């Protein structure tokens, strides 16, 4: 997958995408942009990527998205931002496997689990008791539904929206922060199944990369000079 160096403050804006082309404005290691990269990959949608430095943002980015955040999608004159909005938009507008349930209560269940997870996961520094409380809801949901993924037999929007954080948890899941098999058998099974998915493999990075980038922010880490 071709990747590009990140545009920074003072850079010239790239040409807008050609008609019909889907462009994703992203940052290689951002977990929120990762959510949308997974959904695009899962639905087999071709797109081009423009990476930006999220610490020294290019000025032109603010005229596309006033919040100047990744992910931002550009498609046929439309601009879409906010990862969960991007994902729902992509799922509804593009053909292919549907990632969001149609049934209203099932749809609500996904929204509520997302809220529980967001409330308990604690973005920057994982707070273990809170995170484990969030995990217990995920564990119970998988157990009750008797499903390998939150989306059912295959991953859905919720699987893809929580996955980026799990992939990064690996950097801290050693020693006493490792998830106990006895307490989280379903979540651990889910994690293994997700690691096996082609779209997860395409979009992911290894633990060493995440560890390095977490310690020293570098959107271009790993790219040839």
């Amino acid at each position, binding site marked *: 997958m071709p990747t590009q160096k990140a545009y920074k403050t003072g850079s010239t804006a790239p040409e807008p995408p050609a008609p019909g082309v889907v462009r994703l404005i992203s940052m290689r290691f951002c977990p929120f942009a990762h959510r949308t990269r997974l959904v695009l990959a899962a639905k087999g949608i071709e797109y081009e990527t423009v990476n930006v430095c999220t610490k020294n943002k290019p000025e032109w980015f603010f005229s596309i998205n006033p919040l100047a955040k990744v992910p931002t999608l550009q498609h046929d004159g439309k601009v879409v931002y906010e990862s969960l909005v991007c994902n*729902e938009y992509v799922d509804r507008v593009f053909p292919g496997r549907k990632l969001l349930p149609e049934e209203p209560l099932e749809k609500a269940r996904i929204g509520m689990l997302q809220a529980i997870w967001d409330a308990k996961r604690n973005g920057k520094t994982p707070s273990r008791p809170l995170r484990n409380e969030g995990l217990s809801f995920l564990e119970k949901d998988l157990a009750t539904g008797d499903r390998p993924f939150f989306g059912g037999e295959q991953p859905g929007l919720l699987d893809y929206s929580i996955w980026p954080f799990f992939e990064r948890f690996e950097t801290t899941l050693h020693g006493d922060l490792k998830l106990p098999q006895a307490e989280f058998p379903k979540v651990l099974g889910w994690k293994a199944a997700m690691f096996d998915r082609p779209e997860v493999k395409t979009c992911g990075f290894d633990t060493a990369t995440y560890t390095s980038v977490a310690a020293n922010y570098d959107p271009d880490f790993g790219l040839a000079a």
Partner: protein
Amino acid sequence: MFTIRRYRVLGSFSVFCRPCSQTVAAMPTERPMKRGSACPPPPGPGKLRLYSMRFCPYAQRTRLFLAAKGIEHETINIHLKQKPKWFLLEKNPVGKVPVLEKDGEMVFESLVCNEYLDHAYPEHCLTPRDPVEKMRQSMLLSVFDQMVMSHYYSYLRASQAGDYSALSKKFGFGLQHLEKALTQPFFGGSQPGALDYNLWPWFERFSTIPNRSEELSERRVPRLTAWMERMLEQPAVKACHMPYELYSQFVTSFAAGDPDYDAGLGRWSSL
């Protein structure tokens, strides 16, 4: 002596709930239920119940939808500083309002509740059916959330001090973004829709604050000013409206660390 009953909580959220082991015949009142209270019996079959708090802007979003869609429901208010244990265990593990309960199913998160109401009660749908329009409205709400709503309490403090100089630039920027997007009488078109009602609770509070900042002046946001006046005429808005004095009373008590959830209720009020 209490009758011990078990209520089978149906649906996917039964995983988060244990059945009530104890009930009392609870009469719905406006006064909030607190820690130590007994779990009220569930609403009757097919009946909708809303768990709310009279001054919560997020719960107001759902109250507005219920009013706009003419959906019959009962309300139980929750004391958000001393939450009943049953509320966390049986209704919403995140412990927030609004929560909708019907036939053993719980739905929480205001935007999830509102979208669910449009699915479950499809007449007079407020959520846009077109995915592009829906996405457009979601993004407007996100900009408002991150630039304006996040500064709500700073705004209140600034208005009380009569000095807006320290208010974040994002506040005005966010309002301008909404101003430019408002090209019809309402965000929903010729009639209010989801975005209008999801935004309204904060604008209701803004519109009643005396000495509004320049950013909220008619000069700076003429379209939003006219929209606020139109919204105040809407039956759903009127049904859920609270006067500024009560918001002010509540916010002052909240800032002092002891929220007065009963503000405005008569001394002998039980309804």
